[in-house]
């Protein structure tokens, strides 16, 4: 421990209790803001806070240093009560350079903590950020915010001046100075980060030493420097007891598949073509070959879906994933799976569109594509996880439904869920519902389109089974025999049967849980990654004494059987979505309720505040 750090411990500054805080680290893409944010998340989780995160990075791989479009940021909210979202406005912003300040400062609450790395505020960086004058010299900044100018680079270099590293290597550790400082401010334990450094740089003691020293230097700086008069502490949140880990949506989807493969004893073949923000699932699965997950990086999305279908025909569970543009390409192939009545799981990690759009930003605008993005009547099951951790259960559920009903299942995740993380209570996998797959082996009376009376699913046969040789295809088939049929009435019957099979999945849906009164003035209906923002807003309104409830849909097709009834128990229905109004159209068409949408398509999660405002307006009858 360096001397400064030691000193710090001796004279602690006052600690103020806090219920929650929203912190954002922002800097250049090369400044390591994502890592900083992740470590701060881990520290907060270990400190017992509930939390939610929002990584946000440019589409460019390494945008030229100092530019506005090259700014990368990581935001999190942590608190001693339930935390649903990464937060709207910031309590604390760390700006590592002028560009980061420019892009993010408006999100800081008046009076919020603004920590800037003054070293980076040189003429070159100011120019790149388009600042004529140094904003730090503008007194209004310090008036509006609690501004702390820290010469981080110098302090960093000082802390490790004696280490045999070059300046570039030394400079690269300055994000840990920021991390140490903010950890001090919010009384976060450094141990998780110290452990991480140990593991990560096990083979390079000097780099490890440098990072440790800089981290502690930042921490000590908070304690000792005159500029910080107080720090904050948070009670641990009341969270269900258990073992926790941080979980991102993409990893949870991947692990959900691993769990499904283990429980079903059916191997999974995962066909994908890289695309942001879905690639992480492929990369995660590729590391777990021991689970008999076979990954194919296909030549394109069509091949990826096709390979998955081929695998399903072979008696494995075919899974494919992409983001919106790639899902658009898979439409025809999904139609084949619909009519071939094979299990297929499709993950759509939604991102900003249309077309290439905003590849690294989040959106919820593929619901209609999931429901209808294919030729003709080709219904599929559509599910959506509510939180990063929920992705685990949804992936598992998707495999279960796909194999039970012999039907494609689309899972709608999004960029926010994919990269965002939450403290996740590790489930006991043996408590998951079983996935019972029966491959038909009995040739007696076999036809490929016989149906299970309960699910309407047809028999799944593994090629290689003697006596069950059969042919299927994309041309319309006679129900039962599976022979090609152009008979008009058979076609009508098959169209209805495929639809009914999907409708039957409703029997899998548990009663809808209502967050709030069972009847009232307003019901807020959401789906997917907006769960946190909606829940936070509704609970705030409830705390204000309003008769507001919310319902969050995980099953979007078919819809929960009790939903129509629930909707009619409220005077008004509000549907917040990060799209132009998709679920709201489905609900209006289905239930003929005058549901209204709240729609913001900004590439970002919805703001709790905005939803609150809308709730209030609706309640006041606007």
């Amino acid at each position, binding site marked *: 421990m360096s001397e400064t750090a030691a000193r710090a411990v001796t004279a602690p500054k006052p600690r103020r209790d806090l219920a929650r805080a929203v912190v954002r680290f922002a800097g250049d893409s090369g400044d390591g803001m994502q890592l900083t944010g992740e470590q701060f998340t*881990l520290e907060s989780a270990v400190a*017992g806070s509930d939390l939610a995160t929002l990584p946000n990075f440019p589409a460019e791989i390494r945008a030229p240093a100092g530019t506005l479009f090259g700014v990368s940021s990581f935001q999190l909210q942590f608190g001693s009560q339930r935390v649903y979202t990464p937060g709207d406005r910031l309590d604390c912003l760390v700006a590592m350079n002028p560009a980061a300040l420019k892009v993010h400062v408006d999100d800081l609450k008046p009076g919020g903590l603004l920590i800037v790395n003054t070293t980076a505020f040189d003429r070159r960086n100011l120019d790149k950020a388009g600042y004529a004058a140094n904003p730090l010299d503008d007194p209004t900044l310090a008036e509006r915010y609690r501004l702390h100018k820290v010469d981080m680079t110098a302090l960093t270099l000082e802390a490790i001046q004696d280490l045999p590293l070059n300046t570039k290597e030394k400079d690269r550790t300055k994000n840990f100075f920021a991390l140490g400082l903010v950890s001090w401010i919010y009384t976060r334990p450094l141990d998780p980060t110290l452990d*991480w450094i140990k593991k990560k740089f096990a083979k390079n003691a000097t780099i490890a030493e440098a990072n440790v020293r800089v981290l502690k230097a930042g921490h000590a700086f908070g304690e000792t420097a005159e500029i910080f008069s107080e720090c904050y502490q948070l009670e641990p949140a009341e*969270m*269900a*007891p*258990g*073992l*926790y*880990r*941080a979980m991102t949506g993409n990893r949870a989807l991947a*692990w959900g598949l*691993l769990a499904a493969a*283990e429980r079903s004893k059916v*191997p999974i*073949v995962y066909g994908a073509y890289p695309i942001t923000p879905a690639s992480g699932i492929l990369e995660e699965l590729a590391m*777990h*070959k*021991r*689970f*008999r997950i*076979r990954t*194919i990086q*296909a*030549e394109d999305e*069509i*091949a*990826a879906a*096709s*390979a998955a*279908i*081929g*695998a399903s*025909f*072979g*008696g494995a569970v*075919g899974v494919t994933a992409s983001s919106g543009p790639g899902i658009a390409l898979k439409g025809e*192939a999904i*139609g*084949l799976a619909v009519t*071939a009545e094979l299990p297929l799981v499709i993950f759509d990690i939604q991102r900003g569109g249309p077309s290439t759009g905003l590849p690294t930003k989040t959106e919820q605008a593929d619901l209609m594509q999931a429901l209808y993005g294919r030729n003709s009547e080709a219904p599929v099951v559509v599910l959506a996880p509510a939180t990063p951790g929920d992705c685990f259960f949804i992936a598992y559920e998707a495999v279960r439904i796909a194999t039970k009903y012999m039907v494609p299942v689309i899972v709608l995740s999004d960029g926010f869920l994919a990269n965002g993380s939450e403290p996740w*209570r*590790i*489930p006991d*996998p043996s408590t998951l519902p079983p996935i019972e797959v029966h491959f038909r082996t009995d040739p007696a009376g076999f036809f490929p389109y016989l149906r299970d009376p309960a699910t309407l699913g047809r028999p799944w046969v*593994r*090629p*290689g*089974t*003697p*006596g069950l*040789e*059969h*042919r*299927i*295809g*994309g*041309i319309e088939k006679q129900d039962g025999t599976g*022979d*090609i049929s152009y008979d008009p009435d058979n076609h009508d019957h098959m169209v209805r049967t495929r639809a009914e099979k999907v409708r039957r999945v409703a029997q899998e849906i548990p009663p809808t849980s209502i967050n709030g009164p069972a009847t009232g003035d307003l019901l807020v209906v959401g789906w997917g990654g907006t769960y946190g923002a909606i829940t936070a807003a509704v609970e705030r309104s409830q705390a204000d004494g309003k008769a507001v409830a919310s319902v969050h849909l995980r099953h979007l097709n078919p819809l929960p059987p009790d939903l129509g009834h629930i909707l009619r128990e409220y005077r008004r229905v509000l549907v917040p979505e990060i799209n132009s109004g998709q679920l709201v159209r489905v609900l209006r068409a289905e239930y003929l309720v005058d549901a209204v949408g709240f729609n913001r398509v900004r590439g970002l999660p919805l703001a709790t505040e905005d939803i609150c405002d809308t709730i209030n307006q609706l309640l006041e009858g606007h």
Partner: protein
Amino acid sequence: MSATGTGAAEAPRYTKKDFESDQDVRWCPGCGDYAVLSAVQKSMPDLGIPRENIVFISGIGCSSRFPYYMNTYGFHTIHGRAPAIATGLRVARPDLKVFVVTGDGDGLSIGGNHMLHVLRRNVNLTILLFNNRIYGLTKGQYSPTSEQGKITKSTPMGSADRPVNPIAFALGCGATFVARTVDRHIAHMEETIKRAAAHRGTGFVEILQNCNVYNDLAWNVLYDKEQRLAHEMKLEHGKPLVFGPVDARQALIMDGVKPVVAPAKETPPDRLWIHDESNLNAAKILADLFAPDYPVPVGVFAAVSAPVYEEIVLDQEQRAIADKGVGEIAKLLKSGDTWKIE
């Protein structure tokens, strides 16, 4: 995991009839597809593979109706995607023997990309590409193999595209087994199909096929007795490249980096070009030859050995399991950074 379609020892003794399904065959009377079907059905017993371990995957087109007529497992899928579907099937089930049936449109127009990638991956599949130089099922538009200037429904003044040469294309993609045969040469077809089926990796066979309705006699150079005699050059490993009638036998030889045709009699034996299936350079030169200036090669252009995609995939899985055992989700969930809340 056993290699492709073993089980020869226990495989029942089949006859052609065992591979005929109960479905009505729906091609035009006179279509070359009938002959191919018959040749494939006749080849099957010799593969020594239990019928239930054989799968036919096809795309869309007249030719792609094929699987319905084979009493094996079969999947008539969507246009152009059969190689990708077959890839997924092989990765899931490397114990099955998988055939892909495709057409010049299905395999080289909409499906060209999947063809490229299945060939370079060397997935263990046998691909039968029925080349009739026309779109049959959609009623006679020109195809990617149609000759330039072809007058069809969609090109009343002649097509503007230069045709793709399936053999040259396959070789350019890195194919490990490339052959050509002809629907009307039954014995050669059977022999070629069997060789392709036995290849470890992707066995690509171009079958010159007659569409008597929309492109009759496109391959007349190999149907017409005289023309065939003059131009057909059978590729036989280890044998010199010669062709033409006995009394006017021609040899194909290299003049520097150019193939030329010379009277066989006058060619010194050491200048004869001995066909070598393992020489991909030679195969590429042969691929570009066609009548009238050159002979038309039929048979196996190239057969080389290379790693098979799904074998590597499976091998990695086995190695991963051997290293650390089969994965357990309960353990994985608790791995890495965790913390307890009491």
